[in-house]
Every structure is written in structure tokens, then in C-alpha cells.
């Protein structure tokens, strides 16, 4: 167990709790920087998905996890960022201004979509964002002079200040840089008045308002900021996927982002990263199971002589090949997380950490809420 003695107010404002904490993050950064030298090219490529999804996670986390506004249309912002960036590159704009413009455009779109948020709450808002996403998808398929419609839009690898990021290693570092940047600025906002205002809106609009928070401004700001980050992710996404088509930016993708923040753990930036790891690595994992499992079960069956293994392996393999299975697995996991670990992967991680730091004194009750009496109970 580690106790932190606080001797100045600054300590509560720092990015890292103390030197030990900082040490862990430095170690993590070193490890992440070393990954491209340890893994195959393919794995490095897959890992950069984690970073792109990580930015998407940070984006949705500020909106859903911190401001309490649920959007079912964030794939549209990703698409707007991606198409805008691709369009500007196609017209010969250098990389940096192109990304900046793409981010600005999505920010403005987010602001506009956020306007109804001032009047709507809960499910109604979610449905409004859903409608927006559907409309945007139609725009992607019909505005052919910009998006090339279903013919698709090729996007080359990024070249920044004459330096090419075509290799999967270079691209990995580029995505990592932007994820760290997104995490840093978001963390800054969260430890400043803006972030506190968002959290206040999430937990009690009426109290936030009475404390001087202008609900309209802070809600649209949350939407705009979240959309802007999504636009940034979209620009990287465009390079990663190399070929844009309208049917990429579907509702399913929006729901996948929501899954990301819920599985990761609402209300924490760690959760956004954990969720991104999960969402980015689950499809390759399913693919590995799909292709590898039948063969290894067949091996098992021949070596043990039990034919059942062969049948089970084939059944699982065939099941995983069915269309829609991936979405089904995502859905199943979402339900399980909500039922069993509402705080998501980050909540689980905190518990594991406490277990080790208090070992052998850990009590299963440590995370039970202290009984808080409701007014009615006490008046009895």
C-alpha cells in the first residue's frame, strides 16, 4: 500500500499523481515506442488501429462519459473528417493544413449537431444523432463530385514536410503521436473549469446551472470538441484504410464506438484506451480463432482419438464464418459488461491494482458502496 502525502495544491493539479506514477507511464511509453522493433509488420499495422480507435474513444468519452450526452452517430464525424482530408489531399493541399481544415469542418458540424442537444435529452438526443448519421451517409453516397460515391476514393499514404509515413512503422508513430496529443489536451480540459462543467452537466444540470454553468454553451462545446477529435481520427483512418466508401461509416461503426467507451469504462480516459485495445484487437482475434481453431481441434482429435473435438472445432469455425457474428459477439460482450462490470475494463483494472497493493489484506467488500441513507429511510 502506497500513501501519498500532499504538501501543495499543485500536487492535485499535476498530470501524474507522483513520481511512482510518472515512472509507470514512462515505462509504458518506452514499451509502446519499442513495439515496432519487436513485432511483425502486420502486427504493427494492426496496433496502429488501437491508436486511431483510441482517439475515437477519447472523443466519445468526453461526450458520453464526461458530459453524459449519448451520440449514436459518431461514425458520421469520422466519415466527414476522412472525406474532407482525402478531398483536400486530392486537390494538392499539404498534409498539415488539410488535417487542420478537416478537424475544423468536423468541429463546426459537431457544433451544429449539438444545437438540438440543448433542447433534447436522453433517448431523443441519441435518435437525433442517429438521424444525422443516416443523412450524412446519404450525402457521402450522393455527393459524387467530392466523395466519388460508391466508386470509392483512394487515399495515399501521408507525406508530412516531405517525409513519407508510408511504412507501417512510421504510420504507427504518427498515430501514436496524435493519440498522446488527444489524451493530453483532453486531460488538460478535464482538470480545468471546462471539464468540471461537463462533469457537472452529466451529474446534475440544474445544479450546474445554479453554479453558473451556461448549459447551452458547454453542451455545444462538448459536441464540437468531440466531433473535432473524431475528425482528426478520421484523417488518420482515411490513410489507414486507404480507400473510402460510404458504406464504411455505418450505424454499426457508431455503435462500435459506443461499445468501446462502455466496455472501457465510462468516465475515465484510461477506459477510452482500454476500450480501443479491445475493439481494435477483437476482430483479428476472431479471425485467428476462425482460421486456426478448426485445425488445432482436428489435431487434438487425431492425437487423442476423440472424434468429438473435430466436430466441435468445425462447428465453432463455421459459426464464426457466418456474417454478422462479429456484431453479435460485440453485442454479447456489451450486455455482459453492463451486467457484470458497469465500470468497464478500467473499473476491473482498478480492483486488480488494489488487490495487489493491499495484498494480503484485500477484502471483497472494498468496493461495496458505503451505505448511504436516503432521506425517507432516516425519517422513519
Amino acid at each position, binding site marked *: 500500500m502506497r500513501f501519498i502525502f500532499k504538501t501543495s495544491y499543485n500536487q492535485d493539479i499535476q498530470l501524474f499523481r507522483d513520481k511512482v506514477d510518472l515512472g509507470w507511464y514512462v515505462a509504458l511509453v518506452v514499451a509502446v515506442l519499442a513495439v515496432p522493433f519487436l513485432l511483425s509488420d502486420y502486427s504493427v499495422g494492426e496496433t496502429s488501429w488501437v491508436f486511431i480507435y483510441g482517439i475515437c474513444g477519447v472523443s466519445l468519452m468526453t461526450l458520453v462519459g464526461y458530459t453524459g450526452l449519448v451520440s449514436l452517430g459518431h461514425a458520421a464525424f469520422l466519415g466527414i473528417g476522412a472525406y474532407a482530408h482525402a478531398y483536400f489531399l486530392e486537390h494538392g493541399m499539404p498534409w498539415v493544413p488539410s488535417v487542420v481544415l478537416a478537424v475544423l469542418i468536423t468541429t463546426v458540424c459537431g457544433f451544429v449537431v449539438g444545437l438540438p442537444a440543448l433542447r433534447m435529452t436522453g433517448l431523443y438526443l441519441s435518435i437525433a444523432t442517429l438521424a444525422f448519421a443516416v443523412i450524412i451517409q446519404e450525402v457521402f453516397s450522393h455527393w459524387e463530385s467530392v466523395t466519388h460515391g460508391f466508386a470509392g476514393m483512394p487515399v495515399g499514404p501521408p507525406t508530412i514536410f516531405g517525409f513519407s509515413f508510408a511504412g507501417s512503422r512510421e504510420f504507427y508513430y504518427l498515430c501514436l503521436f496524435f493519440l498522446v496529443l488527444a489524451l493530453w489536451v483532453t486531460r488538460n480540459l478535464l482538470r480545468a473549469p471546462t471539464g468540471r462543467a461537463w462533469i457537472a452537466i452529466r451529474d446534475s444540470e440544474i445544479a450546474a446551472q445554479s*453554479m453558473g454553468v451556461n448549459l447551452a454553451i458547454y453542451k455545444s462545446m462538448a459536441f464540437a470538441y468531440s466531433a473535432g477529435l473524431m475528425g482528426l481520427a478520421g484523417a488518420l483512418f482515411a490513410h489507414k484504410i486507404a480507400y473510402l466508401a460510404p458504406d464504411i461509416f455505418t450505424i454499426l461503426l457508431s455503435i462500435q464506438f459506443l461499445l468501446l467507451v462502455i466496455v472501457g469504462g465510462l468516465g475515465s480516459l484510461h477506459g477510452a484506451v482500454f476500450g480501443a485495445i479491445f475493439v481494435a484487437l477483437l476482430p483479428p482475434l476472431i479471425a485467428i480463432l476462425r482460421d486456426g481453431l478448426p485445425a488445432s481441434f482436428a489435431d487434438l482429435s487425431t492425437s487423442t482419438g476423440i472424434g468429438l473435438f473435430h466436430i466441435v472445432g468445425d462447428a465453432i469455425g463455421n459459426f464464426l464464418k457466418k456474417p454478422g457474428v462479429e456484431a453479435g459477439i460485440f453485442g454479447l460482450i456489451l450486455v455482459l459488461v453492463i451486467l457484470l462490470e458497469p465500470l468497464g475494463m478500467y473499473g476491473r483494472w482498478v480492483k486488480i491494482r488494489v488487490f495487489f497493493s493491499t495484498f494480503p489484506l484485500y477484502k471483497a467488500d472494498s468496493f461495496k458502496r*458505503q451505505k448511504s441513507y436516503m432521506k425517507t429511510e432516516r425519517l422513519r
Partner: protein
Amino acid sequence: MSLFAAEEIAINFGGIKAVDGVSFAIEKGEVFTIIGPNGAGKTTIFNLMSRIYDPTSGRLKFEGQDITRVAPHRIAKLGIARTFQNIELFEHASLLQNLLLARHAHKKSNFFSELLFLPSVRRMEIEHREAVEQVIDFLDLQQYRDTLIVNLPYGVRKVTELARALCTKPKLLLLDEPSSGLNVEETEDMAFWIQDIKNLLGITVLMVEHDMTLVSSVSDRVLAINYGRPLAMGTPREVQSHPEVMRAYLGG
């Protein structure tokens, strides 16, 4: 000039006249209490004052300025803070964050400086923290600083809400049933704090309260209302023994 004045304020919800022509003036430095049976319209008066509802008629004045149409988020900056009858804290934030949010009306930083957390933002944050720490010391909340509100017992939440209101540095403090749900000991503490708030901090208090012991021990003047109409006004003793008030409470 009174610190605050309500002139013939009224509001209807559908057919119900929740508040129906109430006038009162609060003098600087006093503790003014509104009493009345359940559903009398006390909380509604608070909601009118914090501009959550628009009055159907009547005017509100604070420090001589007409605030009948001021936006609700500007009220804190003017110097009016409140607590809520059913505690409205930011439950999934720490006590410290709850109190810091109350400094929102005094924030000077803008979005872009916060994005980069410039030294100016840090300086402001430390100033806010110092203001908040004074309130924490005043109400003895030191040990709960980093606790999430959901993990706090009811009594502490009640004090936290009072603390949060104080952190806005108000001139007028609205307390909606500060003692509801508290035990005898906690209610006594609350009475001392209200007196200290008045005497040491010089903050004017407007309170809604059912506990007559608390009302008599801290209030300078009391206004009794029923069905949104004023019944009697005067010292706690006068109002308590007023025949109309007794009838309202006995359900006559």
C-alpha cells in the same frame, strides 16, 4: 435598500397557482425564513429566484437591479447561491471537484488556454483551490476531500451542498430545508453553521425549513405561506402563534 425584494410574484403550473402573489424583502445580514405546509410553494419561490422558472407576473430585485429576466446561469455571478431540497450534488465526482465547480462563476480562463493548461490556468486553479479550502476548513470537511459523493453518508452530503453554495462567494444564500433528513446532533451543527455564516461571513440567508426549533433559533424574520399565498410575517414567535398559521398547520 433591501438586498433582495420579491414583488407580487406568481406562477401557475397548468391550473395550479403554486405561488400566487407573494411579496417580501430581505435585509442585508438577516436570516429570513419561509415556512409553510407541504406543497405550499416554498421550493417554487426558490426556483423562481434562481430563475429556473419564469414568473407569470411580479418582479424580482437583487441589490436594486431587476433580475426577473436574467438567465439562470448568471444568478451565481450576481451573488445568489442555493442548495436543493433533494440534494443535487455531482455524484460521480469527488467532493473537491464539486466545490471547485462552484467557482465556475469566477472563472477567467478561456477554452484555448485550458486546452494547453497554460501557467495562467494553473495559477487560477490554485486560487480557486485556496478559496475552496477556506470553506472546507470552515465546515470541517477535510477528511472527505477526495471521496466520491456517492460514497458519502447523507449527513455529509448535506454539508457538502452547503459548502458548494458557499464556494460561489454569495451575498445571498438560499437553503432549502437544510435540516431535512439530519439527526438531532447534525441539525444542531447546522444551526451553528447558519449562525456563523450570518455573523462571521456576513452572508444573508434565506431559508425554507420545517424544523421549528431550528427556525426559532436562527431566524430574524419568518414568512408563512400556504397555497402560494402569504399568511403572516414577523418574528418567529409572532408567526408561530398567528391564528392563520396554526390553522394551516393543523389542517383547518
